[in-house]
């Protein structure tokens, strides 16, 4: 069965708001992959590989390494597919959460002397955010995310992007922003909640 990327299912607007990207077809593919169905896994791969690779590129900043991470993630998806529980969240979220963890593990493992780079990371995130936010050729989902990030106050946005895209721990974020660690944890929680509410309202 070749169902491509499942875009034909995007017309399902009766799904709850904010879950328009939760493709039930992908959940089914992952459940079948968990039963050892390699064809279903190939369908899942095709639907998600560009997003996994995009995330890996953003975090590890090196195409060859990002591809290694992507390969590693996809094989891990296969290996641990039986642990996926559809009731606990969509397949896409499950795969991207795993991908983010692997990408962060990769940058942390090579991050000797990171402290020196913290301030550079702050500048880089400010700059790349400004650049990306201006791009017009983005998917609707991306547009919503960027708009919601823009609407976040800088003090809430920076901890999110430094942790998520740079792979910094909350303590490193605290150091980079000269802010107490407890405050950073609190802002991460608050920032994600605002982002969630905004994405729900806008999608």
């Amino acid at each position: 069965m070749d169902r491509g990327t499942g875009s034909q299912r995007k017309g399902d607007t009766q799904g709850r708001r904010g879950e328009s990207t939760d493709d039930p077809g992908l959940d089914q593919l992952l459940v079948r992959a968990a039963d050892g169905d390699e064809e279903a896994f190939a369908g899942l791969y095709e639907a998600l590989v560009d997003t996994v690779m995009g995330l890996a590129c953003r975090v590890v900043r090196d195409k060859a390494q990002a591809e290694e991470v992507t390969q590693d993630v996809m094989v891990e998806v296969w290996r641990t597919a039986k642990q996926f529980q559809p009731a606990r969240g969509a397949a896409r979220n499950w795969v991207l959460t795993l991908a983010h963890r692997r990408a962060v593990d990769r940058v942390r493992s090579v991050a000797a002397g990171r402290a020196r780079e913290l301030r550079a990371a702050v500048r880089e995130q400010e700059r790349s955010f400004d650049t990306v936010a201006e791009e017009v050729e983005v998917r609707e989902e991306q547009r919503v995310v960027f708009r919601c990030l823009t609407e976040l106050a800088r003090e809430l946005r920076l901890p999110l992007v430094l942790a998520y895209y740079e792979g910094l721990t909350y303590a490193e974020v605290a150091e980079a922003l000269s802010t107490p660690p407890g405050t950073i944890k609190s802002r991460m929680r608050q920032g994600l909640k605002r982002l969630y509410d905004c994405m729900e309202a806008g999608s």
Partner: protein
Amino acid sequence: MNLTDDPHLDVGAYVLHALPAAEEAAFENHLASCLPCRLEAEQLSKAAVGLGAAETSAPSADLRRRVLDQIATVRQVPPDAFASRSRRRRQGV
């Protein structure tokens, strides 16, 4: 009075994978016994996934074949929650 002593406070950092390994393990223990925390973590992780899906990039064309070749040799683990994580942790990663 230390804010960092409130385990609920860690949920955002946890979802962003921004807790060091020891604190992450402690928070996962807390999650196991805190339903509201699990629900909040699931909700916040949707926002994090939004950040993760912000860009796409096509890998080289032969990655698909490499992955499909590789999975043919990889055995799937049983549906044991957190099994792969705790295994990773025991290895000290």
